[in-house]
């Protein structure tokens, strides 16, 4: 399902302070209905604080937020959401099946063995369904947490690091499940993950938070295309850098040219006219990781590339 024009979450100037620490600092964000929306940020960026406010677990210090049109913290809003915040924990004396029945009952649903079994199967816990939770690995707890978040058929689900502690096949299964939630079930999924490749593969749109503030927001394709550069394997490198002015950076025996795609042919003609030997020329896109690193200040990209990315974003 592609994102629609309706928003499921809107925050305005949302702020949360813990003493002198501003976990969220005037965050204004609109999350559209449908699709998978990624919320990215380094540790301490404010992702979990944002989720906890949306779920009514904590109150904001300032600002407002609505969830599907309802005020945050109201049960009418939170009952339409499912969530898994960090590694979930459950009463250790219960089995996976009992956990789901318990939470269904808490939600006002009648115990339905077919539904319970269906969700346990969908998250890959069929064989462990009647085992006590106290013996579960982190990955199994994550799977059960996802089932607990989804079994009440919410319209919106928040998954915070859903693949944490999972093995690679488990991560693949979870990725497929998340996409199917959006595409098959029509659920809006909000996903936080440190695995940026996973986010890039799964999410339609992302917001990047840093120090409690929104630093970038947009579709994954827009964000990654704005960092696109022309990689030229050329001789001599110095001459090409001179021709490009400030738009080129050396990368070994190659040059990365930060120019729009439309200027590519003209540049190549100019280089040939100037007697430059071109072994190879290809466009390389910026992946989400490089965008994330740039926006959160982890590494520096050339200033003009950053500026261009901001204008395009």
């Amino acid at each position, binding site marked *: 399902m592609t994102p629609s024009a309706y928003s499921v979450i809107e925050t305005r100037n949302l702020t949360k302070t813990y003493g002198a620490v501003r976990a969220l600092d005037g965050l204004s964000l609109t999350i559209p209905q449908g699709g998978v929306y990624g919320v990215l940020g380094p540790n301490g960026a404010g992702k979990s604080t944002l989720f906890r406010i949306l779920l009514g677990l904590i109150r904001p210090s300032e600002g407002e937020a609505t969830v599907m049109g309802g005020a945050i913290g109201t049960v009418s809003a939170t009952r339409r959401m499912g969530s898994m*915040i960090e590694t979930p*924990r459950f009463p250790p004396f219960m089995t996976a099946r*009992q956990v789901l029945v318990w*939470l269904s009952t808490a939600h006002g649903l009648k115990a339905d063995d077919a539904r319970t079994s269906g969700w346990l199967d969908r998250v890959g816990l069929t064989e462990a369904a009647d085992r006590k939770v106290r013996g579960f690995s982190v990955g199994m707890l994550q799977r059960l947490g996802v089932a*607990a978040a989804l079994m009440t058929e919410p319209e919106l689900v928040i998954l915070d690091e859903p693949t944490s502690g999972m093995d690679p096949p488990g991560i693949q299964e979870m990725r497929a499940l998340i996409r199917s939630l959006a595409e098959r079930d029509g659920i809006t999924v909000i996903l936080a993950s440190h695995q940026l490749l996973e986010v890039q593969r799964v999410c339609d749109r992302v917001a990047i938070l840093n120090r409690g503030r929104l630093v970038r927001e947009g579709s994954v394709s827009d964000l990654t295309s704005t960092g696109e550069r022309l990689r030229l394997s050329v001789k001599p490198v110095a001459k090409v850098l001179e021709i490009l002015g400030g738009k080129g950076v050396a990368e070994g025996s190659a040059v990365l040219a930060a120019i729009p795609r439309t200027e590519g042919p003209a540049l190549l003609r100019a280089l040939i006219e100037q007697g430059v030997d071109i072994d190879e020329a290809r466009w390389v896109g910026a992946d989400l990781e490089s965008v994330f690193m740039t926006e959160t200040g982890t590494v520096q990209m050339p200033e003009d590339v950053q500026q261009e990315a901001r204008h395009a974003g």
Partner: protein
Amino acid sequence: MLADAILSEAYRFARNRMAVFWTVLFVPILFLVFGTLVALFTKARMAEIASQMPQVDLDVGGPVNLGLSLVKSAADFANPIVLLFVLIGVATLYAGDYRWETWRLTSARNTRANLLLGKVGVVKVVILLALAVWLIGGLAGDVIKAAMLARPVTFSMDGGDAAQFLGFSVLMWLRVIQFTMIGLLAAVVTRSLLAALFVPLVVAIGQFFLMQALPILGLEPGDWLSQLMLPGLAADTLKALIEGGPTGASIPDGVGIKAVVSLVVWTVGPLAASIALFQRQDLSKE
């Protein structure tokens, strides 16, 4: 919505077999075993005395009236040992969501007031169940004792006995609930299971010493302050009134009302404070 909270808490508590055992079954079983051992010892001692002094006619007592046995068991329910073990199970119910970090799973599904009231609802039923098992255990103990000592068993309960049985049952049920309310407040304030268990016990011990200190403080047991300050004293007052006879008659007029007010204040007060605090509590760690 409240019904959902009660049902889900009941479902979860029923799966916590250890908590159910300690709360409902352990003390009656303990008393039954201990009572049986005492009866065995008594029987053996009597046989020994009879063999040494055959001329002595050992009176083993008259028939065992199970009706009066029920009344006595009901009056003895809220004893320190029952309180301790009921509190063990109740503490897991009140503080379990802090301990297992499961508030985040349930708080999105119901109002916070309902979530706490759901726990209180289950606790009330669990204490009623504990009372029922306690009464059954008492009956079983008396039947076993009677069989061992070759005493006949009867059952008679007149209107007065039935009223006493009902009065003691309700009073002792409320008395234990009142203690668990202190446990609830302790759980919400401290988010700790141990606090939910030990704070009510500390309050009980404190009350015991304070009751001894009333004369030093220049207070009479029938004073408003004494009754309000000491719910244990208030419960004793009501127990004496239910018991009637010379003990009940010694209670001055109007003290019963003070005792009822004390019982209500000590039950509703901690519950209201718990809900008020829980409504605004930061549950980010739970």
